[in-house]
């Protein structure tokens, strides 16, 4: 069966844009120290605080899992949301936009490539963290864990595509906004503690960030020590994530269309001298 030419072009563009991120993860190994060892140092502080407080042992697992998931959030902020700012600086953006393919394919390629490289980083953090702090996993349903992880990533990268589209008109402020979003999300998504501790309404509001629900559900399924620590049931969180996926993808498509139109009016798809 022959693939329709428009779909073939779309898929080729995804592969093309994902490629630099995939090879970058293997070709430039300078990320290994700052992005696997340094996060371990950061999460070690929380591990020792929990141990000093004689918190249940699963809290160490919460921290390691949360520390690993920061790789995805950082990737969303710095390699998705503010990516078009860098692409504009190097004149790539105008070449992406004037190519005869939907910019969504470019964004999807960016997302898939970023997901690949972030998974390597997150895997390294989980491996090192688990070995160093003796984390034991009691996975109750591997299938559901994988489904929730998959849905979290689709929704999260959908959100990243939406942010990238919204920042299409931005200059350096995209960089500042990413900076401003980094630490607060660590807090409100409960990267280092169960999000339920924030209270129902704060946790519910933080659930707009897909990692909040994904992380909470995965913790419940991988560390089933105290069932009262979960915010919502894993199945309910799975259902909400399932809803968030098409919402973010649809919003990013609409935003991209509108922002490209606005950028063509304002002339912000390239720097003036380019």
């Amino acid at each position: 069966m022959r693939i329709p030419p428009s779909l073939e072009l779309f898929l080729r563009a995804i592969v093309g844009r994902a490629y630099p991120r995939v090879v970058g993860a293997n070709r430039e190994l300078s990320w290994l120290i700052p992005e696997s060892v340094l996060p371990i140092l950061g999460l070690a502080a929380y591990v020792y605080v929990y141990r000093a407080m004689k918190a249940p042992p699963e809290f160490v697992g919460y921290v390691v899992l949360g520390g690993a998931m920061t790789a995805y959030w950082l990737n969303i902020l710095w390699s998705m949301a503010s990516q078009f700012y860098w692409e504009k600086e190097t004149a790539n953006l105008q070449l992406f936009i004037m190519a005869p393919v939907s910019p969504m394919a470019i964004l999807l390629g960016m997302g898939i490539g970023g997901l690949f490289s972030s998974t390597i980083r997150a895997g390294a953090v989980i491996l090192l963290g688990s070995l160093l702090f003796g984390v034991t996993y009691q996975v109750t349903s591997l299938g559901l864990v994988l489904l929730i992880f998959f849905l979290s990533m689709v929704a999260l990268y959908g959100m990243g595509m939406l942010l990238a589209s919204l920042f299409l008109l931005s200059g350096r402020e995209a960089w500042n906004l990413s900076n401003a979003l980094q630490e607060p999300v660590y807090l409100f998504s409960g990267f280092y503690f169960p999000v339920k501790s924030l209270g129902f309404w704060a946790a519910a509001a933080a659930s707009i960030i897909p990692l909040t629900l994904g992380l909470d559900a995965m913790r419940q399924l991988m560390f089933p020590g105290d069932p009262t620590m979960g915010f919502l049931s894993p199945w309910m969180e799975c259902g909400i994530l399932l809803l968030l996926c098409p919402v973010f993808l649809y919003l990013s498509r609409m935003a991209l269309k509108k922002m490209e139109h606005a950028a063509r009016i304002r002339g912000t798809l390239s720097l003036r001298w380019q």
Partner: protein
Amino acid sequence: MNKAIQTIDLVREFKVKAGKNRETRLLHALDGVNLEVYSGELFGLLGPNGAGKTTLIKILVTLLYPTSGQAFVDGLDVTKDVLPIRQRINMVSGGEYSGYGILTVKETLWMFSQFYGVPYIEAFKRIEELLEVVGLKSEANMRVSRLSTGMRQKMNFCRGFVTDPKILFLDEPTLGLDVEAARDIRAYIKTWMKEHPDRTILLTTHYMAEADELCDRVAIIDHGKILACDTPQALKKKISGGALLEVSLAGLYELNWLKGNSGIKGLTFSSSIEKNRTTLKLVLESEEVVPGVIKELNQRELSILGIQSVEPTLEDVFLTLVGRGLSDENSTLP
């Protein structure tokens, strides 16, 4: 003849903030541009920096909306038929740093070819051919971050051709290249046009000799307006009614004061510190003005080493139309 590109009263304005109070004012980048480029033509757009060349190209490649007027590429409206236009075109800008440093030259060209749906085998075949032509074959597997500026420019040039566009926009393609590399690129442009007579190239440049060598027709643009449009030969013929004079003077001088004299349509001058000499080029209304100019120079006690009448070049056409050379953009008409 089919029109590959057509613009009708094209206007583009930008809001810019300027001055101490950062007041917003309108900048007229294009001011009623009417242009027709035919299929199979290698068309040159000449003008100084800020003349509107890049703005015009950005509108034609669908990166920018016009403020008013219309523009068509291959008969398609740039504001409405975006996708079909994008399927037919490509663009190379001089001095751009596109691509990713972590990829090799070959990988970069392949990546961009994928955005146009070029099949793998075809893409790599074209890449091999293009790298051979521009002399980058030995750097095919070198990372882009390790390329020199000239090599990177050559790679970008290949990027424009790898998608085999029907209409290609080359915005200052030889900017920053050494003489040999620029010559290779010009040679390839000529060969490509010869082998693909149905294709069209719109070339912007401020190298007059480049336009003279390559272009079937040229348009001269300044301050967003097209001042003239014809073949290089016809444009040069148009100014042959006057007189072109090159005067060599001993010593280094600033000669803008001559611009006020009647009969002088435009002038440029350049000084050589090594030779302690100033060369003055004058576009005069007629040869009858020559004695007056010599008298003026003598009155200022300037030592004239030589005077000769010269054949017009595109640079002289520009000088006549604009009143200043491309290198002295701040000069104004007398």
